[in-house]
C-alpha cells in the first residue's frame, strides 16, 4: 500500500508538470493549429534565467515573477516576428520556424550559461521531515505545492476561457479565425497573446520542474524528455482540450510511474518508447484524442 501510494504521488507530481506543458501546447494549438515544438526550450531558457537570478541572490519566489513575464514576452515576440510572417504560407513553414527556435534557444542558453549542470534552487522545503505521512507513504510538501500550483493554473485558465471576453475571443479565433475577424476581433493580437500565455505557463512549469527530476539540476537536455511526454499527454487528451491536457498529463505521469515501478523487466529508459508508442497509437486509432474535436493534420 505505502509503495503504491509513493508511486502514485511521484506519478502525480511528474504528471502535473506534463499537465502544465501540455496546457501550454493546447493554448497554442487552439489558436494556431500548430504544435509548438519550441515550447520546451522556451521553458528551458527561462529556467536558466531563473537560475541566474537566484545566483545573483534573488529568492526563487521573487525570481519567478520576472521569469514568467519574460516567458510571456518571448512567446509573444516569437509569434509576432517569426511565426506570423510565415503562417500565411503553410503549416510546414511554421513547423520549421518552431524547430529553428528549438535549436536556437537551446544553443543560446548553452552559449550564455555553459553546458555544465546548474544546481537549481528548490521552491519548496525539501529535506528530511518535510512530509505528511499518508498510510505509511511520504507525501512531501514540495510535491503538494506542485499539485496546488498546477490546479491553480488549470482553474485560472478555465476561468479565463469561460468567463472573460478575452477568453471568448480566444475561443472564437480557435473555432473559426475568419469568422472571428469578420466579427471585429483582432485575430493577430489574439494569436500573439495566446503564444505569450502559452510560454508563460511553460516558464512556470520549467521552474517547478527542474527540482523534481533527479538529480534536481538544470542542464541543456532538461526539457527534451518532458516535451515528448507532454506532447504525448496533449495528444492523448485531445490537442484542443484543456480537460484533455489535464487527464492526459496525469495518465502519463501516473502510468509511467506505475509501469516503471511494477513491471520489473522494464527500466526507466522504456518511458520514452512508451510515449512514442502512445503518440503513434493515438494518431492511428483516435486522432482527436480523448476529449479533442480537431485532429492534427500534419506533424
Amino acid at each position, binding site marked *: 500500500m505505502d509503495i503504491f501510494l509513493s508511486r502514485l504521488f511521484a506519478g502525480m507530481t511528474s504528471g502535473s508538470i506534463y499537465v502544465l506543458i501540455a496546457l501550454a501546447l493546447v493554448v497554442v494549438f487552439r489558436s494556431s493549429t500548430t504544435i509548438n515544438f519550441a515550447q520546451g526550450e522556451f521553458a528551458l531558457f527561462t529556467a536558466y534565467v531563473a537560475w541566474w537570478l537566484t545566483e545573483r541572490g534573488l529568492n526563487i519566489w521573487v525570481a519567478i515573477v520576472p521569469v514568467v513575464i519574460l516567458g510571456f514576452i518571448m512567446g509573444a515576440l516569437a509569434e509576432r516576428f517569426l511565426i506570423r510572417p510565415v503562417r500565411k504560407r503553410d503549416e510546414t513553414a511554421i513547423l520549421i520556424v518552431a524547430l529553428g527556435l528549438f535549436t536556437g534557444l537551446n544553443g543560446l542558453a548553452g552559449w550564455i550559461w555553459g553546458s555544465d549542470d546548474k544546481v537549481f534552487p528548490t521552491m519548496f522545503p525539501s529535506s528530511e521531515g518535510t512530509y505528511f505521512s499518508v498510510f505509511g507513504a511520504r507525501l512531501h510538501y514540495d510535491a503538494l505545492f506542485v499539485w496546488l500550483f498546477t490546479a491553480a493554473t488549470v482553474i485560472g485558465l478555465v476561468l479565463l476561457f469561460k468567463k472573460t471576453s478575452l477568453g471568448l475571443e480566444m475561443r472564437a479565433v480557435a473555432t*473559426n479565425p475568419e469568422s472571428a475577424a*469578420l466579427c471585429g476581433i483582432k485575430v493577430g493580437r489574439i494569436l500573439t497573446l495566446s503564444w505569450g500565455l502559452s510560454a508563460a505557463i511553460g516558464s512556470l512549469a520549467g521552474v517547478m520542474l527542474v527540482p523534481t527530476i533527479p538529480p534536481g539540476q538544470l542542464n541543456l537536455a532538461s526539457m527534451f524528455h518532458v516535451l515528448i511526454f507532454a506532447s504525448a499527454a496533449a495528444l492523448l487528451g485531445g490537442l484542443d482540450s484543456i480537460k484533455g491536457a489535464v487527464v492526459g498529463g496525469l495518465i502519463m505521469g501516473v502510468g509511467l510511474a506505475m509501469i516503471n515501478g511494477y513491471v520489473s523487466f522494464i527500466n526507466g529508459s522504456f518511458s520514452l518508447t512508451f510515449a512514442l508508442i502512445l503518440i503513434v497509437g493515438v494518431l492511428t486509432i483516435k486522432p482527436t484524442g480523448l476529449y479533442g474535436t480537431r485532429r492534427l493534420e500534419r506533424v
Partner: protein
Amino acid sequence: MSQSPLLEVRGLRAGYGQINVLQDIDLEVGAGEVVVVLGANGAGKSTLMSAISGLIPHTGEIHVDGKPVGNPRPDEMLKHGISLVPQGRGTLTALDVKDNLRVGGTNLGSKKQVEEEMDRWFTIFPRLAERRDQVAGTLSGGEQQMLAIARALMSKPRMLLCDEISLGLAPLIIQGLFETLGKVSAESGTALLLVEQNAELALDIASRVYLLEVGAVASSGTAASFRDNNNIRQAYLGY
C-alpha cells in the same frame, strides 16, 4: 446630409494568388439602400464580398462615406460599419448560440449593450432564443443561417453584406429570411448588399440590381427594370 454614398467601389480588382477574378468593378450603395448583385456560379460574387469586407486584398478604390479606406482588415471594415454574412455561414461551431452572438458584439461598448442587442435578436428569431444554450454546430442549416445573420447584425452595422444566404436551404426558410432582412433594413435603416444565385426573392426586397458576368459588371439598373427584361428574367429567374 452627406452627398457621398455609404459605399462606393471604383475599379476594383481582386482574386486569389496570381488569378484575378474581378475586373474593374464599379458599384455604389447608398445609406439604407437594398441592392442585389446577380450572377451565375463563378461570376465573382463571393470574391466581391470577400474583397469589400477585407477578407482578401484588392486593388482599386473602396470609399466609405466618400473617404478612401485603403486595404482594411475585416475588423477595421466592421469599424466603418460594414459587416459580412459569409458564404457557408461561418458558424463558430464549438461555441453555443449566445457566445456566437456575443462574439458578434465584440465592437459594442459594454456588456449591457451586448445583452440588449442579443435580446433583440432573440425576439426577431425566436428559434434562436429556444436554442440559446445549444452548441451552434448542432443547429440545422436554417438556424445556423439565422444565427449568422443575427451575429453579423450584433455590431449594429450601417450596411450588411450577405453572401448567398439562400444556399442549401428550403424555399420556405429562404422566404422567411428575406422577409426578416427586408423588415430589419426598413426599420433600422441598415443598407443591404445581397449576392444571390436565386434572384427572385432578393429582387422582391431590392431597389437596384447589378449583374455580374465573368468578373465584370455586365449591366445595372432598378429592380423593376430587371424584372421586366425578358432575357434577364429567363436567365436568372427561370420563368
